[in-house]
């Protein structure tokens, strides 16, 4: 295997990892603070993609149209996040986590049909926006610029989340709430308000990743289930609730898949589940996770 081929597979893995990180970070954030594993995270991602398409198609503004659509769609999904958190999850915090889990499972089913009803079964596509239409050349091999865009966006998100969690007051509260929720409440910080904010942030990120994934591939029914399963693998491997863990998990899953495809394509996804199972057996809370609930 020559170097440029290996390097290219590696870069493919990075791009895949970046997209996974974009989606999984919201899931991890929500779990870390709210202790809710939001099954419907993938559905918000999917809805974000479809809404982006509709806005883009409606606006028909060349070049900028897509970016505007992305921003609008992310905001809309944040709004949907508010609805879900306020009307559904908030009333279930007093109940057990099984009810919360099941409620998010119900949301998957509802959003699936909303998409079916709203857009039918067609698969849709948004062409890559300028200036990311072509390819850049690394070591003589072309690498699609849109993949670079996704990697850059992933990096930006890493930086943003790092800043948020470690450099702001909200971040302090987030980290405190992740360790000891009751104490935070005892200190006078309204937990419901915090939860809503975090969930909304998670939904915003999910919607954004959905929007960004639209020009990457195809927009279609079933993309919610596809992505959520890989997201589970990412957060399990990296550590649920840990953002560094999610980053590491995304990179690992991305590379395992990429090189799995090169050597044994039928087994690529199985490798990921095997890694997931091994992590759960040896260290259930993931590489960077903490051994609590």
């Amino acid at each position, binding site marked *: 295997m020559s170097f440029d081929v290996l390097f290219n597979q590696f870069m493919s893995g990075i791009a895949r990892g970046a997209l996974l990180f974009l989606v999984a970070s919201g899931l991890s954030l929500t779990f870390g603070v709210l202790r809710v594993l939001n099954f419907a995270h993938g559905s918000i991602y999917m809805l974000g993609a479809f809404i982006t398409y509709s806005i883009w198609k409606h606006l028909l503004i060349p070049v900028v149209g897509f970016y505007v659509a992305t921003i609008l769609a992310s905001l809309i999904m944040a709004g949907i996040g508010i609805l879900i958190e306020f009307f559904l999850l908030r009333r279930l915090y007093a109940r057990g986590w099984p009810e919360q889990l099941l409620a998010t499972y119900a949301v998957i089913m509802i959003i699936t049909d909303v998409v079916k009803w709203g857009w039918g079964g067609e698969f849709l596509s948004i*062409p*890559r926006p300028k200036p990311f239409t072509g390819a850049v050349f690394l070591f003589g091999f072309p690498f699609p610029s849109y993949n670079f865009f996704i990697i850059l966006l992933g990096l930006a998100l890493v930086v943003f989340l790092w800043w948020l969690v470690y450099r702001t007051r909200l971040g302090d509260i987030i980290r405190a709430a992740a360790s000891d929720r009751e104490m935070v409440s005892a200190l006078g910080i309204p937990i419901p308000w915090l939860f809503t904010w975090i969930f909304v942030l998670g939904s915003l990120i999910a919607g954004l990743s959905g929007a960004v994934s639209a020009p990457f591939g195809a927009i279609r029914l079933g993309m919610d289930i596809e992505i959520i399963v890989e997201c589970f693998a990412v957060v399990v491997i990296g550590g649920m609730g840990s953002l560094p863990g999610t980053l590491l998990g995304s990179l690992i899953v991305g590379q395992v898949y990429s*090189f799995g495809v090169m050597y044994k394509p039928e087994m690529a996804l199985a490798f990921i589940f095997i890694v997931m199972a091994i992590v759960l057996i040896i260290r259930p809370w993931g590489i960077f996770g903490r051994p609590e609930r």
Partner: protein
Amino acid sequence: MRKFAISTILVFIFSVISVPLVMAQAKPAPGGKEPITIGAIYDFAGPCYMYSESAINGVRIAMEEINSKGGILGRKLDMIVRDTEAKVDVGARETKDLILREKVNFLMGPCSSGVSLAMLVVHSEYKVMRVVGIANTEAMTVDKFTPYIFQVVPNTYMEATANTRYLMRKIPTAKKFCTIGPDYEFGRREELAFSEEIKRLVPDAEILYQAWPKPGETDFTSFITAIMAKKPDAVHGSLFGGDLVAFAKQAKPYGFFEKYPTIALFDLPVLLALGEDAPDGTFGFGRGCFFMDPNAKMMEFVQKFRKARGAYPDSWSVMAYDTIYLIKAAIEKAKSVETEAVIKAMEGITFDSLRGKFTIRALDHMGTVPCYQGTIAKDPAYPGFKIWKDISRIPGDQVIRPEASVREIWKKAGVVR
């Protein structure tokens, strides 16, 4: 223990209440002559959703036409639609529903090959016949054959054999190949048929690498770079639908299609979605949408379809329309709707469809339906999406599996005919 008692009686009460609710579903027969009912079982979930919708649209138009002209044997045609949710167990249950409760005369569908095979056992046991227009695994008429199935869509063997020939016609010097197919029954069968045919056409052909993305894959980048690393002369693909859209978009910046001539299922829905992103000069294959076979009958259908639906008909609407008219022809030939009589009438029938004439082979109920290939290009008559040029129509009887070969497989599979 009181819980036990309460629970028991409630279980009983609820089941008893639910049952009449379910029973209330049965429709009373309309006054006068009973309609001929077609049970349309399709998969309204995931990637199959849109093909199922297309098929239903095609059926509706055919039904309206036939009923406005007096129906079949003086009876109106009626359709009941059921959803399998792309799940095998639901599909099997809905088949039972249509046969036992709705008492349909014939069945149509589905889209998913796995569901189709599970359904086959059920309706064969109840002796109801079905015509398939979407799911096209060869297993239906070969490995798992029963006399109650008919296929009017080119099966995986026919399709791959035909498109391999087109590929070789276009790139006659190719010797090294890569394949990319969705890793499930359909993809595997197509690529298997490709590898058999290519060895026949090019004895020293080499298949360097076979990419098997999972159906529903979102990111083909790793597969793309893996194929490019092998530097093949041509690429044979059986990707379709959303998978193909994603693949095409992801491969484009690599200059993939310019470097590696490729053939894949670039039919109407994919071309509509891709728009300008569709790669010019790349080869496509399909089963018969309007631009693949613009004969007079087809164009008339296009007009009707556009008026009714405001869109162009894709291959699935076309085949569903053909299916209804085929059943009509068989019923009229048999002068009866009795399953056994219609089956006999179908065997060997020659039918003039939107895709030209074809015959239903008596041996394995496989229609000698045509396979289409073409090269993607822009046609000013159709703004907004690309279509094909250099269209090739390979009649089914040129690529259908020879009867001797079918019998051989039957012997191994234990099918008795």
